[in-house]
Structures are given as structure tokens and as C-alpha cells.
């Protein structure tokens, strides 16, 4: 590809979000090229567990996007369910104490009002859902809408289904803009791609890509470790995690501090994820982080004590200061759209994001859904306070 190539839209990033953007844009009739400096799923997509969750979200724009996305995931599963290992397994959030259970139930009530199915489970019924759970829990809430995909396969198969041109191993060095600031394509290390629209789906590296377009977007990495056990016969049916400290849901922080998610996989290993640390792009093993994961998992499932971890790996969630993604057109650079900064929810929120981006590309960017995710909502100065 020495010379330039012309299409309707260039999507930068061949991860889950880029794949979803490519699919919905192509289905809206656009000619799409996806470009990535690495392979498909080479970034955070390849390091995640594939959570499609509503259970961990408080009512608001992110939960609305999650509900839309889950519906779209259900449609995608009709076509690609087997290839992407779609499993509507449901989630179970458990509380260790009566006080935590009260907070959890209050959160669930709010979620129900927003359209989430959240079914209270008394302590003596927990074993019906998960027979190997620790016996001393106060109760829980069952979220049947929570689901799972294998994220790398999902990205690869959505890209294939999109029919988009895929250029892996091409690094975008610059987003091309005319003298009046309008975006007209990208320059890569192997030539130029011309298009009236460029979508930034570069995930954790979305801030870097934004800078190559001359705008700022304060995406920063938040490291997570995942522990993988030896293959086991199926014993954990759902995504299970503990809500030990549910903050006052009516309060502003509304932070759900939780233990690790523990879940079985079709292939046999149990996945335990994930820690959260702000340490930049440092892949060095953190034994304290994986010890905390192991301890949290055993509190929920005591049988895991003798089970061996065969692997652990780190990924970098792309987070923005207000923990909401940037989705939609960037008024500072006409033709540039952002679809990044989903923190730990990128797989789950991908179809909704792709759908919104396709709407914007076809001239429907005025929908209210875009308001909360405006990419220019942060001050222009580089965001430094969370760097360590």
C-alpha cells in the first residue's frame, strides 16, 4: 500500500470497539477501512474477560448504553453466537453481611427502575444457583441479563462480518486535516488513507491518537490482572462477585466496591478478575494484586484453595477522569469521531458504541444519547493528576 486509498470511514483500532464501529458503519452502507498498528485484539481486548454486564452499573447514561448493547449482543449472537462463544450465563452478586445486602438491594431497586432485571436471592436459595458458594453469605441479587463473549474472537468475527478492509501492522502516524481543520484521512507508516471520517477506537491509546489529530483526550491506563486456573469440570455457572461495600446509592460517589469476579469458562479454566491500579503501562507482575484476587475468589468459593493458577496477565483499561467513555463527533476536529475510554466495560458496551457511531456517521449526531459521552467535555490541558 504505497499510494493512498479512499473510503468513507477509517476506523483506527482493531479491538472490540473498532470492530463494532466497523460492523455498524458497514451495515449503514459505508465503505470502511480498519487500521491497527498491531494485530486484531492486540490491546486491551485481548486482555479482558469478555464481561457483558449490567449488574455493576448504577443508573445513568452508562447503564442505558449497557442495556442497548446487551440487546444488540443478543442480536449478534443470532448470527455469530457460536463463533464468539456468546454465553448468556447471568450474574450473581452476593453480600457477605446483612448491611451489605441492604445496600445491594437498594442498588438493585434503582437498576430495576432503569430497566434491569435484578432478582433478589435469599441466603438459603444461593446454593440453588451456585452450589459451591461459601455457605455463610447474607444473600444476593441475580442478574439474568449479564452475559459473556470471548473478546478476541468477538472482535475478529465482527470484523469479518463487517466486510471492512483490515490493515493490521499499519501505524497511524497522523490524522490528516485540511487548512480549515477538517479531517480528510490518516497517514500511516505505509501510506495514506483518505476518508471524510476517522473514528478513534484506539482504546487505552486513544489519547495518543487524539494527539495525532491535534486534539486532547485524557485517556489513561488502569492496570488489571486476571488469574486463570487449571481446567476444571464445570462448577461455577455464572459470573459471581461480592458486593461487600456498596456505598450509599443515592449519594454522589455511588461506587460499588467489589471483590473479584469469579467465573467458569467453556474451556474449563476459572477466570478471576480483575484488580485495578493506576500505575501507567507497567506489565510487571504485581504479586500483591494477584494475591488479593486469589483471596477474594476463595472467600466466595472455598474449593478454589487447592486449585492451581496456571497463568496471570495484565491489561490496561482505558479510563477517562469521569469514568465514562468518549463517544461521538469531536467538534474541535470536524470529521473526527471518538469511540474509546470505556474503562473495564469496553466489550460489553461495544455494540451500543458502534451503533451510536454509525448513527453519527449517517448524520444523526444530535440524539440525546451523545450528550454524556461528548469527547470535548474535559478541559484542554493535559490531564496529569492520575499519573503515577
Amino acid at each position, binding site marked *: 500500500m504505497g499510494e493512498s486509498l479512499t473510503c468513507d470511514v477509517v476506523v483506527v483500532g482493531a479491538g472490540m470497539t473498532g470492530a463494532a464501529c466497523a460492523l455498524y458503519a458497514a451495515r449503514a452502507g459505508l465503505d470502511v477501512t480498519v487500521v491497527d498498528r498491531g494485530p486484531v485484539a492486540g490491546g486491551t481486548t485481548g486482555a479482558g474477560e469478555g464481561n457483558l454486564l449490567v449488574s455493576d452499573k448504577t443508573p445513568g447514561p452508562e447503564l442505558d448504553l449497557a442495556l442497548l448493547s446487551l440487546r444488540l449482543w443478543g442480536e449478534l449472537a443470532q448470527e455469530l453466537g457460536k463463533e464468539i462463544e456468546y454465553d448468556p450465563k447471568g450474574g450473581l452478586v452476593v453480600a457477605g453481611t446483612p448491611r451489605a445486602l441492604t445496600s445491594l438491594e437498594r442498588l438493585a431497586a434503582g437498576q430495576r427502575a432503569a430497566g434491569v432485571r435484578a432478582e433478589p436471592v435469599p441466603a438459603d436459595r444461593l446454593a440453588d444457583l451456585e452450589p459451591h458458594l461459601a455457605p455463610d453469605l447474607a444473600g444476593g441479587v441475580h442478574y439474568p441479563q449479564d452475559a459473556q463473549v470471548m473478546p478476541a*474472537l468477538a472482535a475478529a468475527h465482527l470484523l469479518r462480518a463487517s466486510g471492512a478492509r483490515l490493515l493490521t501492522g499499519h501505524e497511524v502516524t497522523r490524522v490528516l486535516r485540511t487548512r480549515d481543520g477538517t479531517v480528510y484521512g490518516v497517514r500511516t507508516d505505509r501510506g495514506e488513507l483518505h476518508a471524510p471520517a476517522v473514528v478513534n477506537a484506539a482504546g487505552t491509546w486513544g489519547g495518543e491518537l487524539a494527539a495525532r489529530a491535534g486534539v486532547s483526550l485524557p485517556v489513561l491506563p488502569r492496570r488489571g490482572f486476571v488469574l486463570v486456573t487449571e481446567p476444571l469440570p464445570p462448577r461455577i455457572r455464572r459470573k459471581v462477585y461480592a458486593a461487600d461495600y456498596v456505598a450509599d446509592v443515592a449519594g454522589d460517589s455511588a461506587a460499588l466496591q467489589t471483590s473479584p469476579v469469579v467465573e467458569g469458562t467453556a474451556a474449563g479454566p476459572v477466570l478471576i478478575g480483575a484488580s485495578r491500579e493506576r500505575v501507567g503501562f507497567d506489565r510487571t507482575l504485581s504479586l500483591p494484586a*494477584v494475591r488479593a484476587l486469589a483471596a477474594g475468589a476463595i472467600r466466595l468459593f472455598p474449593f478454589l484453595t487447592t486449585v492451581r493458577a496456571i497463568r496471570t496477565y495484565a491489561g490496561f483499561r482505558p479510563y477517562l477522569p469521569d469514568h465514562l467513555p468518549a463517544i461521538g463527533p469531536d467538534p474541535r476536529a470536524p470529521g473526527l469521531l471518538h469511540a474509546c475510554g470505556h474503562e473495564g466495560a469496553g466489550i460489553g458496551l461495544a455494540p451500543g458504541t458502534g451503533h451510536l457511531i454509525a448513527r453519527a456517521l449517517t448524520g444523526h449526531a444530535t440524539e440525546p444519547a451523545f450528550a454524556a459521552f461528548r469527547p470535548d467535555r474535559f478541559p484542554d490541558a493535559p490531564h496529569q493528576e492520575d499519573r503515577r
Partner: protein
Amino acid sequence: MRTDLAVIGAGPAGLAGALAAHARGVRVTLVDAAPAPGGQFHRQPASGLRAARPQALHHQWRTWTRLHAALAASTVRLLTDHHVWCVERVSDGRADGFVVHALLGPEQERSVELHATALLLATGGYETVLPFPGWTLPGVVTAGGAQAMLKAGLVVPGRTAVVAGTGPLLLPVATALAAAGVSVAAVVESTGPRRLARYGGALAGKLPEAAGYAVRLLRHRVPCLARHTVLRAHGDDRVTGVTVAALDAQGRVRPRTERFLPCHTLAVSHGMLPHTDLATTLGCRLDGTAVAVDDQQRTDVPGVWAAGEATGTGGASLALAEGHLAGRSVAARLHGTPYTPAPAAVAARARLRRAADALHRACTPPAHWTDQVTDGTVVCRCEEVTAGEVREALGLGAGDLRSVKLLTRAGMGWCQGRICGPAVAGLTGCRLTPPRRPFAQPVPLGVLAAQHRHEPRAEPTPPPAEEGPS
């Protein structure tokens, strides 16, 4: 437990390093997973077997008895049956150091910690085996595996054997099998004599050794088929024979040269790869697939040395020289004295490394080995991933070993890609890069959790890990 120098691996490199440092006044602890020191090269028969003449199966027996006697006479603390699963870099405010985490005994349910100021990684290497149709049949073993069986258990695997592949392991293994009474139907080596001759200068030192094996194989009437390869192994429940064929100068199978050799055992080897898991977790730089070291065997991480096969496979004599120099360097560093290299060891290291490099270049698998790998051939045995699935991953957008793994599961299983890595790299054209394996061994979650409970709560660094569902 506390020590000045922790040596991981009690093979030739680890033993030489431990003894050299100990002789210079360093407190040394030598850690190994096996029940006795010696490593793979000097693997010992289990004492319960009462082998009358264990030296019959061993090379350089005199070197081994000398090392063993020196170890016994020393105060080097020897920790056998210790399976190191991770080495952690720690800073206690006064000085940087390391914590070696090891699981104990055959059950591996309890973990102990060894605190050390310096670390010598002598973790050795492991065998590479490339797939071919039938390679997963019972009776197909690695050449090193066959050798280990002979050395440790004295059990002979099958009555008739074929030894195949490429590299310096084939001749000694065939010789040992023949000496143990196995009928060796053939040694099938894909490299031709002309290719070896091209590196004749550097290999001159290896010639007497190779000639010795050749003579012994002649005595046992073992035919050597140079520039030949195994096309497939046959059998239903276990291997009953192999089809071999000649290769042309380009490494392609020459038409109409196939022939069938009946056998009960097929011992295969396509070379060795260094064990680098502990080194990469510590952040040591690699050079290709081996740990990068300087002329004192220092890695680029202060306080960490490496020697032997971990720094590039080259055999036991090279490992001894490297280990010795590493031990001297550690002692100099810990005592704050100048490093004084041993000229003989420096010269031996240079000569043996040249020979090893030449052998590596000469003994590469045939250029077109993947042509023989049918789509139905299982490549990743742990996850039962076929060559066809691995090839298809390229069409889905895979571009490196990690993305192939994510899209196929090849390398996700119990062995973590140690066996299938080279095969997947060959089939996809991706570069063979050792993946990060923070756990060098599987570790029980209970061991990790117990350490979590013991962790001091008011630790200022690192920042507390927050946990969450995604």
C-alpha cells in the same frame, strides 16, 4: 530463609556458579526442583534402584563426580524438591533484593520464601519438538525424554526405536539407547553432512565427540540417514512405525524416497529452547529467545546473573564455564572487589559458544517442514488445536503468537505454549517470542491467598489494588 546468593537450578551451570561463589566466601543457597542435584545432564538414578554402574549412561562422569564431591564438601545449602514459581524483586529500605518463592515436594501445596541479595538464574533449557502427522501417538517421545528415562529410571522405552529430528542430542541419545539394548532402526537427521562441514572450523572442537558417537553407533550397526526427515508416525493405539524420506538441498521432500521403518519408539528432537520465565518476570532483557548477559554473565537487572542454557543452549561444558564466571562475578560484586575472570574459563566459553552458534545455524529444521503438517494434525496438545485452526487464525487478523493464541487457544493450556510455541511460529510465520509467564509453575490459589493475609496492611507501596468486576 536468607542467603547472599540464590542459585536457581542445580545443573552444570548452577553447580559451577554456586561453587565458584562459595569458594570466594559467599553464602550460597542452591535451589532445584529435582530430588537430587545434577540437572538434566547429570540426572541421577533414583537411589532405590541401586544402579550398579550409573556412569555407563552418563557423559563426563568424572566432571560430575568432581562437582558432586565439591558440593558435598562445601557449606552451600542445597534445597532440592523446591519448585520455584516466581522470583520477586523487593526493596526493604536498606537494599534491593529478591524473594524466591518455591513450592515444596511432590505435592507442591506449600510455598516457602528464600530472601537473597543476588540471584543466579541457571534454569536450563527444554526440548523443542515440531509436529508431524502421528506425533501425538503413544510411543513418540522427545529424545531428551528418552534419555531422562534411561538416566533416571533405567527403563528402556520399547524394543525398536527410531531417533529423528535435528541437533546434537540425536547421536548421544541413539548411542545411549543402543547401549541399553534397544535396537535403533535409524538415526534420521534432517541436516546433511555438507551443511555441517560449512561450519567445520567452529565445530572442530565437537568433532572428536561426534566421531566417538559415530563409532559406537557403527558398532551397534545403527544406520544414520542424513538429510532425511520423518513424514509421519503410524499406528492406532501406539506407534508401530514411521515413514521417512530424503530431503533436497532446499529442504523439500524428494519424491519417491519414502520408506517405512517399523519401530515401537520414536524419539524426536528439534533442538533446545532456554527457560526464561523467571528472567522475563524480573524484567531481564532477552536476546532472541535467551537471557541477554554481558561478559560477566550479568543480566541488565542489577543483582541478577544468568548462566548455562538459559542464556542460549550450548551444552554442559559451556554451562560449566559460564556458571563459574558468574560465580566469580557475584563474589566480586558482593565483596566490592574487582572481578578477576579465569582465563581458561573465558577461553572455553568463547570457543564453545562459537561451536554452539555454528551448530544452531547448521541444525535448523528443514526449511519446508510445515508442508508435511496436515491441517488435521494437532499442534497444541493441551488444548487440542489443529494446524488448520492455527492457519485460519491468520485470516481472522492474528499477527503474532499472542493473537494466534487468543483466537485459537493454542498455548493456553497446561504447558502454556512451551511445547507448541515453535510450531505455531513456524506455521504462521510469526516471530518466536517467549511469552510472559509470571508463574513459572502452576501455583495453588490457597498459597497466593495465604500470602495476601500475611501482607502488612500499612505498606506504603505499591498502591492498594482496587478490585472490580471488569
